[in-house]
């Protein structure tokens, strides 16, 4: 993994290995916050920001603190704590500078803490033994990929309001079906670049 170029990792994390569409991580807020395009853009950018920053922070803590002290088994609890603290910080920041976005995101801003895609990105980074630069690129790419997916589905859902969805499928069910189709469409990117 050490010789993959960072740009390839960014592109791959967005398209071929989209954290949402290929790993199906972070589905909760994906389904709940994708009714409105502007909320989706807001949440997507918040997740991108948090994911990039926490991947970098977690890389530093993992490789420069936990590995030298031979305490890699603490990775889960440490990663979660770092993510939680960082989300608190983002929450204060967003409330100060964009109260409208703060209230639009509502409970989902603090819920980014337990968004599994964020923890997933940090764990993938360890599993795939990325370098520092690669980790930063992966965090950014995975975040952008997640944001792309939620923005796309929000756009589709806004149009879907006007379509005649069979009643048993209305709401979350049709969204999951559409997500599945979208994941298949993204498989068209497979083979372009690949990270594992």
């Amino acid at each position, binding site marked *: 993994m050490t010789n993959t170029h960072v740009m390839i990792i960014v592109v791959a994390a967005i398209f071929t290995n989209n954290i949402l569409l290929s790993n199906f991580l972070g589905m909760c807020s994906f389904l709940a916050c994708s009714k409105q395009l502007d909320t989706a853009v807001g949440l997507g950018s918040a997740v991108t920001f948090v994911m990039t920053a926490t991947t970098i922070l977690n890389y530093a803590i993992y490789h420069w603190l936990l590995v030298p002290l031979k*305490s890699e*088994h603490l990775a889960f*609890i440490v990663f979660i704590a770092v993510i939680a*603290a960082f989300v608190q910080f983002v929450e*204060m920041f967003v409330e100060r500078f964009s109260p*409208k976005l703060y209230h639009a995101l509502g409970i989902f801003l603090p819920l980014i803490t337990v968004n599994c895609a964020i923890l997933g990105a940090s764990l993938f980074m360890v599993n795939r033994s990325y370098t520092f630069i690669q980790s930063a690129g992966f965090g950014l790419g995975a975040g952008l990929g997640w944001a792309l997916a939620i923005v796309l589905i929000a756009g589709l859902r806004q149009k879907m309001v006007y379509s005649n969805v069979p009643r048993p499928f209305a709401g979350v069910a049709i969204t999951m079906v559409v997500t599945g189709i979208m994941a298949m469409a993204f498989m068209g990117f497979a083979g372009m670049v690949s990270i594992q």
Partner: protein
Amino acid sequence: MTLIIPVIILAALFTVLGGVLVIAERFLVNYGECTVDINESERVLKVEGGQTLLSALYESKIFIPSACGGKGSCGHCKITVLSGGGPVLPTETPYLTRQEVRSSVRLACQVKIREDVKTKIPEELLNVKLFSASVKSTRDVTHDIKEIRFALHDPATITQRPGQYVQIEAPSPEGPVFRAYSISSPFYEDDSVELNVRFVPGGIGSTYLHGLNVGDPVRFTGPYGEFRLSEEEDAEIICVGGGCGMAPMKNIIFSIYERWPDRSCWLFFGCRTTADVFYLDEYNELARKHPNFHVVYALSNPQDSPDPWNGETGFIHLSVDKHLEPDRKRQAFLCGPPPMIEAVTDVLTQKGLADEDIFYDKF
């Protein structure tokens, strides 16, 4: 050693994270002192930034009505914020009409003071006072409704329009909350305030009020409310209540007959069974003195009544429909559960009442 290192790592890490957050909070959540300008500099308040407009005004003894205690779930604390309120928040939009949004009406409990704010507050709300009082008497009028009378101490008298309400301060585990109750005593008894309180299991306000004993101190703000009794004597007054929606009606009716002994007035009151009937004797007595006063009580579940009943039965809007002739100059006051209000409003509209002559309290 294998145990100590993880503990030290975690403790150190959490301390650092906590420290960073505390520092961030100091810089990000600090707005300094801001001013709140009311009605074009009629009053200018200096307040601590970061709190909500509702609590800032409350501290300066301006009591905006609010039933939920600032949680944004009652929609009562509407005031006009001309500048400094920021964008309308998604938590407010369910309570604001499009017209209100255009004329910059906001919920005071959702507007956080981040900069200098200019507001417009109706003169009437600036006159709302905080009363300290004590319980003068309590009486069970039905199995779950209590009549509670407060003697006012400071200020010693209240000036109210019939149908207005007060907000009782009730203690709760999360600090004091306010609950709205209509005043049931007429305007001429200005040294006291009487309420009809139905006990709601688990309800903060009613549990508190039902637990009060004679002599206990209470605090409330008021009077609030849009009910505005027509001063024209030839306008007939229609009062329709259901469940425990009696207090404003009692106030209106006794106030009317103090001022206009011959004015025409109807009271329709819907209950489930005879166990829920109250004040009927008082009204029959009043009707004997004032022949233009008509009382109709109707039971919706007469078969479950503990006592015999030979009055009307059925839902109350049917009685309203039966007794009122169409197209007369009227004013109507409704108080009760939302389905009742809707049904009665439909009937009254058919009888030729305009929307602006129908006042209601939903609960």
